[in-house]
């Protein structure tokens, strides 16, 4: 493996996932896209990414459960940015309570996501 910063992107919409992957890779990150909660769980029990970006609404294994799994079962403090649908502020609050670090509402601006990713990674470095 390389020394590249790795990002796990859990997003079930193929098109949005592709767009974000392109932009993140272009930004120099190594990106793993998953659209399936089980896959995410398996991946996380083997490797720890430097950052997780996840959609709150995902089939079978929601973003909320993912945060809970990472924070409470794996007990990791890897930064988590969540993607939420517009008008779902309550979900966002719950996600923050569970331990999410930042959020973006759909429609997502990839440029904004890149800025937030960089900011969270920088913060995490100082704290670590």
């Amino acid at each position, binding site marked *: 493996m390389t020394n590249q910063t790795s990002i796990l992107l859990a997003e079930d*919409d*193929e098109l*949005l996932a592709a767009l974000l992957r392109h932009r993140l890779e*272009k930004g120099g990150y190594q990106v793993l896209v998953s659209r399936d909660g089980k896959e995410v769980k398996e991946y996380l029990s083997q490797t720890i990414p430097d950052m997780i970006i996840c959609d709150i609404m995902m089939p079978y294994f*929601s973003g909320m459960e993912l945060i809970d799994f990472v924070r409470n079962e794996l007990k990791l403090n890897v930064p988590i940015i969540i993607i939420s649908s517009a008008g779902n502020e309550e979900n966002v609050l719950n996600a923050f309570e569970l331990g999410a670090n930042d959020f973006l509402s759909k429609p997502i*601006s990839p*440029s904004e996501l890149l800025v937030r990713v960089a900011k969270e990674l920088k913060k995490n470095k100082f704290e670590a």
Partner: protein
Amino acid sequence: MKINNLLSLLEQMESLLSEFSFEELSSAEATHLKKSFQTFKSDLQIKIDAPNPIPEPSKEEHLIKKNTKKQSDESNIIANVSHEIRTPLNGIIGFTDLLKESKLNSNQLINVNAIQTASNSLLELVNELLEYSKLASGKEVFQKIEFNLFGLVRDVMFLCNTLVVNKKVELISHISDNVPEFLIGDPSKLTQVLLNIMGNAIKFVEKGEVSLNITLSDSKKEAVQLIFEITDNGIGISKAKLNQIFKPYTQADSDTSSEYGGTGLGLSIVKQIVENLNGSIHVDSNLGEGTTFKFIIPFTPGNDKLIPIQPIATKKSTKNLKSIVGLNILVFEDNDLNKRLIEQRLKLWKCNMHITENAQEGIHVLENQTIDVILMDLRMPIMNGFEITKLIRNNNSQRIRQIPIIALTADYTVRDQEKCTAYGINDYLLKPFSPEELLSKIVLHKNQFIDIEMVKKPLKKQKQEKFNSTKLVDLTKLYEDSDEDMVVLIDLVGLFKKNASEFILNAEQQITDKDKEGLSFSAHKIKAGVLMVKANSLANIVLRIQNECKNSPDFKHLEYLHSRFVSDYKEVNKALDEVISNLKNS
């Protein structure tokens, strides 16, 4: 009877709710859903259990009085209960929608869908009850305004034609020569009655014709009696059931309701309306031969000179038609009939439209889509057309401030005219308006608007043209989001095309299988994509498929929507290729 109906639906919902597993949804939504359900239930119980306040005099002379009073008390209670039920019920429906947006497993989805179907039919029932009790208690206020009967009949026929799906039913209307064109009365109630009876007739005819005949029965200076006859050659009604037909909850056959649907209040509402308009209604039918509904309503003759008739651009209409294809139109309208009417027409002219009565939703559309023309109903319940216009004219964006607004109104006074000018409404259309009138107004203002835009922002327009060679898609935003990287853009567009083809195949199968959960999921999957390439016509279809799936879906209609998607996608596909090749060459 009515209350029992409510209760049994309620029980159905309750048992569904108790089976529903909320464990995996520890979110606040579940609590909200439960809470609104409880409020709803206790509201209902309080109303039903409330002791009857009427004392019971035993003397015979009081009997008739007592009965009438009891009846009006009953309808008062129903009216109140219905109102009270609607609020928590809307809560249930809203939160069920939210719940459905979260990703559920297939079992949960089935349960949520069942809750949704049950609560939607409950809402329909409550709405009909409310209208029925309003009519019965005489609380309904009837309008007395001047209207164009010929225009009204034209609109009704147009709407009825849209109800004929996959059947060989011919619709015929005939108005006798001596029937006056302009009358004073309640046009919306007349429309409601005609649509209800004709809609029923169309439902029960598989092949044949439904005709509307209007003749003059009696004409005096102060009143004209008009006879409306609606005849069909459908399945007919047996003599025994015929005199029951206007009573609430007696659809001709108990089997009929399961086959043809409906809550069983429709015709009793029709009868109430006709009687409240001082008219009378009769029905005549032979089993297997068909049915004739005949009603007579008196009107005051109108004075046609009072109505400012607008110039009609009939001859130009075909030329005009081409120039509005693909136009994006935002419509503020709250009346369901008018909504449907405008929707059908704009669809026929291949315009993209968004119809709402909600100011916030409308502003959101304006901020996120390029809207060419706004049609604005002036009288709306929550925020009227003037107030919404004010919001639009004060918007931060210059583009939004300048979009032409055409007011739609049934009664236009000099004061309205002054107000329109003051608020910045560009023009108005008097209801009922003909398709030609609507078309010519849209064309007029669209052209003026584009002229202004071209002069003011020639550069930006040119840049947009590169992406926007047709209005079917717009890749400007996606290109920006791809960091102006052609390779990424082509990749994404390819992915979108793959998804769209998959959607077409899957949806077709799911419609054949009547698999509404599957279809709803497929629609959900393609939605983000159509929004990203801004294929508005497709987005509109997908949204309608999703909405249709929410209730008990009409698969014939879904078939139609699917075929619309297929044919529109062909154009979108072409447009995408065009935009990409333009970009490559620039």
